[in-house]
């Protein structure tokens, strides 16, 4: 009995205090969002919400349809080195429904292949491959796809005052996130500051990329500017990985319209999506995965009839000497971003623009990001999470 009262009881009390202390520990991460109260739920007590002002989009109503006979069809297909999910929900017992769906699939597959073959920097004779291998000042003919993506890239570059910059090609590769270099295995493999500075200087000339449309032909002209690195003359090169999946989501969304599919979604590797309605719940539940704890969700909202994109420093990264290097390059430093922002999601508007915007916000850092969202993204829901 004495043991119970003098050893066990104090132990239990101490354990309870420690447990209680753990529950009250300080919040580790901050979620910034312009979403109104009630539009989201916080699922993890280690996260706290900081509100951003300015959101002023009007709510959209949807026609109620009898969906009781609807069933899902879905498939995954490889595109742009990742996987895309295509889900359609409709009444597949209706006459011709299966053929209609097969035609839709054929068109989606062909579209994604075209986009991949136009925008890839590694596929020989793709538009971007040809652009990257052209000499400074050269003009080359490109597809309508590449023209449209470059048009949006230039728009977001200007809108974000260069925080989205698809011309950081050499920096991305130098840090091992492209096709030309392996990921560094120790700090000595990292590029030196002088080289990074030259690559970054070259990228600042993205605003000199000129696109032109003549009838049904499309052209792009490469800037004259070059830099010298290790005795080699380098001209500007592009990596459209930060906008291509979003563009694909926009285009597939158009195919959902064309085929009259209002239920289902297109999910391009969780990076960009076009979300329609769900027959059972109306909206889809969008769960945000903790960037530092795989498979744990910390934030939830709903989406319906919207497109969205996400970027994060947990998609591709490595650690060297305690420093995290991710695939998103800051146009200010020319190095992997270390702004403290772990992930960004933009919902609403076009997925291509959202895709580029999420990259830009990652690079801004929290104060400039908050100001930018309040001033420029009043029609979109934005969530970004900081360490």
């Amino acid at each position, binding site marked *: 009995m004495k043991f119970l009262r003098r050893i066990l009881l104090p132990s239990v009390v101490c354990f309870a205090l420690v447990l209680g202390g753990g529950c009250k520990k300080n919040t580790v991460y901050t979620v910034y969002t312009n979403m109104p109260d009630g539009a989201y739920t916080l699922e993890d007590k280690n996260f706290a919400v900081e509100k951003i002002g300015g959101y002023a989009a009007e709510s959209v109503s949807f026609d109620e349809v009898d969906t009781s006979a609807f069933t899902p069809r879905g498939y995954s297909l490889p595109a742009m080195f990742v996987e895309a999910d295509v*889900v359609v929900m409709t009444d597949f017992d209706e006459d011709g429904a299966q053929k209609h769906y097969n035609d839709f699939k054929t068109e989606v597959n062909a579209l994604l292949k075209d986009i991949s073959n136009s925008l890839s920097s590694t596929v020989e004779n793709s538009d971007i491959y040809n652009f990257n291998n052209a000499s400074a000042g050269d003009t080359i003919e490109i597809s309508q796809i590449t023209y449209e993506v470059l048009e949006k890239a230039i728009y977001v570059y200007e809108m974000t005052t260069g925080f989205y910059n698809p011309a950081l090609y050499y920096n991305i590769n130098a840090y091992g996130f492209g096709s030309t270099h392996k990921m560094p295995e120790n700090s000595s493999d990292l590029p030196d500051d002088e080289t990074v500075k030259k690559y970054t200087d070259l990228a600042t000339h993205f605003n000199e990329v000129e696109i032109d449309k003549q009838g049904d032909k499309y052209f792009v002209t490469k800037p004259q500017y070059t830099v010298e690195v290790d005795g080699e003359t380098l001209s500007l090169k592009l990596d459209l990985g930060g906008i291509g999946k979003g563009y694909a989501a926009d285009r597939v969304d158009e195919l959902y319209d064309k085929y009259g599919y209002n239920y289902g979604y297109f999910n391009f590797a969780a990076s960009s999506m076009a979300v329609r309605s769900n027959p*059972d719940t109306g909206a889809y539940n969008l769960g945000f995965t903790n960037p530092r704890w795989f498979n744990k969700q910390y934030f939830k909202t709903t989406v319906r009839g919207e497109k969205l994109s996400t970027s994060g420093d947990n998609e591709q990264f490595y650690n060297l000497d305690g420093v995290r290097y991710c695939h998103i390059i800051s146009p200010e430093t020319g190095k992997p971003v270390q702004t403290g922002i772990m992930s960004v999601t933009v919902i609403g508007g076009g997925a291509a623009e959202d895709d580029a915007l999420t990259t830009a916000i990652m690079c801004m850092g929290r104060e400039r990001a908050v100001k930018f969202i309040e001033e420029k993204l009043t029609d979109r829901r934005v969530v970004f999470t900081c360490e």
Partner: protein
Amino acid sequence: MSLKKIEQVKKDKGFKIFDLIIYGAVLVLVAVLFIVVFTTRDTSELSGVKITVGTEVVFEYEFGGEFNKKSDSVTVEEDGKSITVTVTTDEGKNVVYIDKDKKTAKMLDADCRGKQCMYFPELDNNSKYIYCSPHGVKVEPLSRDWNSPDIII
């Protein structure tokens, strides 16, 4: 401690009401946690495992059936209880362990830098995938629930 105090302690009851309240509260807390954890879990079983390298499916296995090795980059060792799949790419090697009884899969070993993939939880129906980013190797459930109203980013 005085002799009087010692005598007093000896005469005291083994448990006072406050002691019992604390013990009761701890037991209730444990019971509540147990119920919450085990009743909110998706207990449906994983139907099978698919392994991809980049966009290429290199291995598929449906529990209770035969495995399907779809690439020379894969070597498979099978016994009554488990399947061990070794995926070798230009980037390195990953070893995936599939437990036939528990119907789970996990990344047993990898020679990638950081070995982040080995810290993913075991693949069951509550988890989405295990991903080795440096090697582009992904382990995921074989079948997908296209009807789910949940999308994870």
